[in-house]
């Protein structure tokens, strides 16, 4: 990865300084609990719309999706489609009622008529669980960025993000978080657009087949030493490094170089080209040496631009039903998950009314949708950039930027880091709001004045930040997109049934809502913990031994949440019925 770049550090430090400066400035103007937890409901709808993008376009979107497209092709784009589709649910179903019914937390909207401590507690637990699940991939992404940027270990990046975010949230809460997200959302889309233009301008260029014919290996010896391509990794510049990857072997009509391409022409040429993808295999030798082999696999562009190339989606082209259901389940969770994420839902409280909530969601859809289209160009650009790190799918986009020069690498890396800051800030505000308002004030019925609520919110932010740091270090090796898929499943299973039924079914009771949240959340979590992915990637066991037949729980647990709510509501006294129109 090379040594530390002064330019990269300077740009990085500038971004962090601006972020913190903004937070301290806004912090001096934040007095009440309403301004701390909901920015006083005074954010302009356009700012809120771009902040939606800043909140939502997390490390999973920028690092994870671009990395997945870069390594496997079209399959990563399926995440882009699913994530964006979720905003349709948010706009058409949730946005305006949320703004009308709530004030601080997601639980406010659920509990607006019932005034139930059970609902508050269940919703608070769900908010904390979803937020922490969502925090993991963000922190993993932060660690992945710090390594090449500052030449520091993964855990340093995780701790740095945790520390900066806690400062952002402690200074001005939702106000600082909103403006950090606004800046980050705008910069992310702008520089992704610039990066895409550079990719189109560069076009494709072939390499000699001999230069990519050899496999690459990483051997972890029993004595703890690491050999890379047969050379001992000793930390020195020449001490064992993988060759960067990402080559075009053949272009249409035997061309060696295309020159600048138009946005449609880019895909037309790519479809008719041959690209080197790298297949990964892991083996253990008799002496205990663990060998990872990366084998160059020339692949037709036409195959890369279709679904079913990535290991997790390959099953959709097979005969077995389980992988197909797994895929359906993931796409359902992405569709239903967006409108169930607590840190997204509370953003509706930062604008003044329902019309502003609606307009800001439209701006969010435009900004986020534009970015997701760009992920295709960035991912394929990275795949053919000759700059990929085979050991880290999450670094594809920043390393692509590096292939255009150190300055763009520094800016893109700093934006990616700010991306993590923006999303993590939102998650921590959501979690601390749930602790203060739902648990302490509503469930435990503590009598707190405004000042005490804000102080407790800041203490909660520190606590959640520490948990996020620890989990970010523990889950270092997981692809961030995949982890976010799980977070969406938990959010959709726990929150969406109660939210939708609360708004649109008059027979909903408080017991039904509470039961639905608890059952939806618990079933999704248990399913994930018993899945093949958890067996292989967390416990180190065989995926085939997993108890549940597929990894993504949504297709079972989201309907289960609805079913539980309906059955429990029918079996319990109606009490204060909900009304979709209040």
């Amino acid at each position, binding site marked *: 990865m090379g040594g530390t770049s002064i330019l990269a550090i300077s740009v990085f430090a500038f971004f962090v300084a601006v972020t913190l400066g903004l937070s301290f400035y806004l912090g001096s103007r934040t007095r009440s609990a309403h301004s701390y937890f909901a920015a006083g409901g005074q954010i302009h709808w356009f700012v809120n719309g771009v902040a939606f993008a800043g909140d939502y376009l997390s490390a999973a979107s920028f690092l994870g999706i671009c990395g997945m497209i870069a390594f496997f092709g*079209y399959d990563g*784009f*399926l995440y*882009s*489609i699913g994530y*964006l*589709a979720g*905003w*349709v*649910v948010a*706009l*058409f*179903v949730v946005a*305006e*009622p949320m703004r*009308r019914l709530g004030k601080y937390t997601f639980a406010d909207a659920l509990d607006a008529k019932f005034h139930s401590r059970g609902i508050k507690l269940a919703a608070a637990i769900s908010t904390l669980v979803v937020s922490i699940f969502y925090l993991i991939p963000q922190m993993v992404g932060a660690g992945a960025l710090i390594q090449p940027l500052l030449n520091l270990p993964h855990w340093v990046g995780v701790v740095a993000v945790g520390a900066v975010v806690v400062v952002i949230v402690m200074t001005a809460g939702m106000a600082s978080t909103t403006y950090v997200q606004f800046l980050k959302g705008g910069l992310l889309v702008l520089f992704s657009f610039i990066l895409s233009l550079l990719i189109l301008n560069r076009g494709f260029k072939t390499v000699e087949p001999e230069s990519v014919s050899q496999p690459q290996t990483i051997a972890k010896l029993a004595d703890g030493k690491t050999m890379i391509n047969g050379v001992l990794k000793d930390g020195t510049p020449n001490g064992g490094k993988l060759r960067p990857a990402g080559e075009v072997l053949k272009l249409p009509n035997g061309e060696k170089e295309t020159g600048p391409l138009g946005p*449609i022409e880019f*895909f*037309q040429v790519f*479809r008719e080209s041959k690209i080197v993808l790298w297949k990964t295999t892991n083996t253990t030798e008799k002496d205990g040496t663990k060998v990872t082999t990366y084998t160059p696999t020339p692949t037709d562009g*036409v195959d890369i*631009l*279709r*679904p*079913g190339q990535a290991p997790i989606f390959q099953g*959709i*082209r097979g005969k077995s039903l389980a992988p*197909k259901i797994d*895929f*359906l389940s993931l*796409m*359902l969770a992405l*569709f239903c998950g967006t409108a169930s994420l607590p840190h997204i839902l509370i953003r509706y409280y930062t604008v003044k009314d*329902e*019309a502003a909530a*609606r*307009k800001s*969601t*439209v701006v969010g*859809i*435009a900004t986020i*949708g534009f970015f*997701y*289209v760009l992920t*295709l160009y960035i991912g394929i650009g990275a795949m053919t950039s000759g700059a990929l790190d085979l050991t880290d799918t999450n670094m594809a986009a920043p390393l692509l930027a590096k292939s255009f020069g150190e300055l763009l690498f520094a800016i893109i890396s700093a934006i990616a880091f700010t991306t993590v800051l923006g999303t993590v800030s939102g998650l921590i505000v959501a979690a601390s709001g749930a602790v203060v308002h739902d648990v302490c004030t509503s469930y435990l019925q503590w009598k707190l004045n405004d000042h005490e609520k804000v102080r407790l919110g800041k203490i909660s932010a520190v606590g959640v930040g520490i948990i996020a740091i620890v989990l970010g270090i523990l889950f270092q090796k997981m692809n961030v997109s995949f982890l976010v898929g799980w977070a969406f499943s938990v959010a959709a299973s726990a929150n969406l049934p109660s939210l939708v039924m609360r708004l649109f079914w008059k027979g909903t009771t408080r017991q039904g809502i509470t039961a639905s949240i608890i059952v939806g959340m618990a079933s999704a979590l248990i399913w994930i913990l018993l899945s093949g992915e958890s067996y292989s990637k967390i416990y180190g066991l065989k995926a085939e031994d997993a108890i549940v037949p597929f990894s993504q729980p949504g297709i079972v647990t989201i309907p289960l949440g609805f079913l539980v709510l309906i059955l429990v509501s029918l079996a319990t006294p109606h009490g204060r019925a909900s009304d*979709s*129109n209040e």
Partner: protein
Amino acid sequence: MVDLSGHSAEDRQFSSKRESQRNARYGGILFLIYLVVYAIFVGLNTFMPEIMDRVPFAGLNLAIVYGVGLIVFALILALVYSWLCRVSIPHSVEGDSKSATGKED
């Protein structure tokens, strides 16, 4: 309480309620339209992925055209929804038609 234009708080609340109902109705219809288009996309990818290899337009395969199309379609529906919901329901009209709308409900 009556405002400067002569409308009571009850009138304003009723008007707002009608507006919310109208927006929810539009939202529900547009949501269902998008849900169908998205479900077809997911279904094709799951059970007939080979269809995604077809080239319907400008040398692009269906996977790209449908995928990008879904993103653009979401934005178009969002703009349509925004346009449909742009007009506030006047207090006076609603006040005059309270009894009629009550029957409708």
